[in-house]
């Protein structure tokens, strides 16, 4: 039973990280129908920024709590700035272009950002400072659920609640939903669609940055390539849950994380990704728009 619980929490932790990245994917997709392949790189840049800031601060002797807060903020701010800039440079000019053009632009951007960080920083793996302290009260169960798992789960849950609140009740959140559902009409009620799209990129990127910070301090290392695999997985999770749907992204991520965890635990990690993708194919065969995706109501 312990084993099951361990795998379960491991899967939840992994799923939570996917969720933080998948949200950005799903929000961007929902609003402009673009698979933003550069989103994984935003996550990577978030991790790098928090790494740089945290290390600098720790060298200058700041207390841990201050480091966590400042590094987290810096990661969110800069990732959001990157997301905002990328949208302006690489996607906005293509708003009216054929459907695949922005996708290729996104792939190009992803390659560009990877190599940008590679050149500006280093190709090596870097040790990420342990920002999440070992809580004493977790010690008796630390072999099952560690402090960092707890922090990741709690943070993700808080972020989800915050995001749901934002989307559901704030003006910008409603504007985002409205824009996603009917862009022409959004314009006609006076919503500045460009600004809403920018806001979507900013929020999605900031979430990815938080994911970057959490996972980097959980794993303890980063390099310029971490965004790619995480990005693909998160994208898979978003589709699994029904792309465009925010609760779907969370559910899809958790399902994916748990599947991978149990597949490794009870079968073999050799085929971990095979299980993940097969699950995706199976679910889509029986539910073509994902777990929580709405069936198409209109022809697009």
């Amino acid at each position, binding site marked *: 039973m312990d*084993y099951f619980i*361990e*795998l379960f*929490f*491991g*899967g939840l*932790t*992994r799923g939570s*990280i*996917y969720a933080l990245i998948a949200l950005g994917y799903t929000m961007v997709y929902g609003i402009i129908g673009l698979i933003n392949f550069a989103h994984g790189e935003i996550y990577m840049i978030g991790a790098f920024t928090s790494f740089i800031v945290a290390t600098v601060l720790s060298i200058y002797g700041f207390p841990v709590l201050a480091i966590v807060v400042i590094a987290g903020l810096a990661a969110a701010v800069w990732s959001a700035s990157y997301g905002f800039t990328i949208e302006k440079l690489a996607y906005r000019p293509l708003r009216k272009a054929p459907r695949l053009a922005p996708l290729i632009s996104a792939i190009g951007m992803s390659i560009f950002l990877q*190599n940008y960080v*590679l050149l500006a920083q*280093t*190709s*090596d*793996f*870097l*040790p990420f400072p*342990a920002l999440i302290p070992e809580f004493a009260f977790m010690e008796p169960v*630390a*072999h099952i659920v*560690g402090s*960092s*798992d707890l922090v990741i789960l709690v943070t993700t849950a808080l972020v989800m609640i915050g995001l749901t609140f934002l989307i559901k009740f704030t003006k910008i959140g409603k504007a985002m939903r409205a824009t996603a559902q009917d862009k022409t009409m959004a314009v006609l009620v006076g919503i500045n669609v460009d600004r809403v799209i920018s806001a979507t990129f900013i929020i999605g990127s900031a979430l990815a940055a938080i994911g970057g910070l959490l*996972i980097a301090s*959980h*794993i*303890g*290392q980063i*390099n310029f*390539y*971490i965004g*790619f*695999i*995480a990005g693909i*997985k998160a994208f898979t999770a978003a589709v699994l849950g029904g792309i465009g749907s925010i609760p779907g992204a969370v559910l899809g991520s958790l399902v994916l994380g748990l599947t*991978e*965890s*149990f597949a*490794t*635990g009870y079968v*073999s*990690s*050799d085929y*971990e*990704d095979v299980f993940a993708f097969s699950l995706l194919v199976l679910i889509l065969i029986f539910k073509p728009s994902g777990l929580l995706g709405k069936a198409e109501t209109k022809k697009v």
Partner: protein
Amino acid sequence: MKSALKKKLFVTAVALSFALTVPVATIAGDTIKFGVAGAQSGDLASYGIPTVKAAELVVAAYNAKGGINGKKIELLIEDDVCKPEVATNTATKLVTDGVDVVLGHICSGATKAALPIYKEAGVVVMSPSATNPGLTQSGDYPNFFRTIASDDAQAKTEVDFAINVIGAKKIAVIHDKGDYGKGLAEFAKTFVEQSGKAEVVLFEGVTPGAVDYTAIVQKIKRKGADTVIFGGYHPEASKIVSMMKKKRMNLNFISDDGVKDDTFIKVAGKNAEGVYASGPQDNSTNPVSIAAIAAHKEAYNEDPGAFYENAYSAALALLNAIEKAGSTDMAAIVKALQNEKVETPVGNINFDAKGDAVGVGFAMYQVRDGKYVEVK
């Protein structure tokens, strides 16, 4: 209208022919062309770039002394992204550019793809990091040498150590699904099974770069392993080791040359304490090695990366062989490599008939107080 079209056609044609001919022009001159090939971009760049740096430093040192037999050495650096198909292009480019010897490639797969091209052209190749046993043992590539021992020798060292020194009974063999890691793990598994003194309780691969390794670590615990043998590189190793510490597991962790790298200790920090890794015999007192690392620190203001010493050694061995042979002819260089010993960071070495370095053996190391210390 028509003339405008003609003009455009003409411009296009000129541009095209320009684009096609420019790269053909190579710098002629009386130099020794020293090729360096390996991953310099992409996800494996961190294993290829240190080799470039080593080559740059060695060649600069040689050129500062006036080159070899009056000839300056010219570097031709080419990226193969560790992909076989790119490696064939890289190799063809180097051969077309008239390369004399090549330091590289980094990955075994890319090396295998490139070697027939060099063989055809009579170019000696020396890899600092391609450890696939077949490269030397198959006898297919008489022009291939390496300054790193092959996977099977290394696996043997690890398994002997695990069984005879630590007394491991239940061994989990984990690898990174890669060319190097999985090859090594398979040898380790075979050797453990052959020994009859211990059993392999788990043999599995982890996905490099995956978000976390909690599940596999839990599985190791569940299988009741007392020792983990890991085949692969340091990023995955440090993730697994850290995760094991987080899960309060105290198992012996034995790994390979890809982990016996200071970066591992840096990244894994205090979690690295106690980890065993096989690696080339201790060079820390070897003056050539000390000088090589100092040169790197001076030039780049940071510690060298993976395979730096092997690459440095290979560069020295190649240039020494050219110097001793007095020619860049393949047969002469091969002969010199086999017969002339040379002082390198990995020891005083020459090469056997198959191409493996003689005298590059393995020792076991353990991380103690943030340093790899040889275990006798």
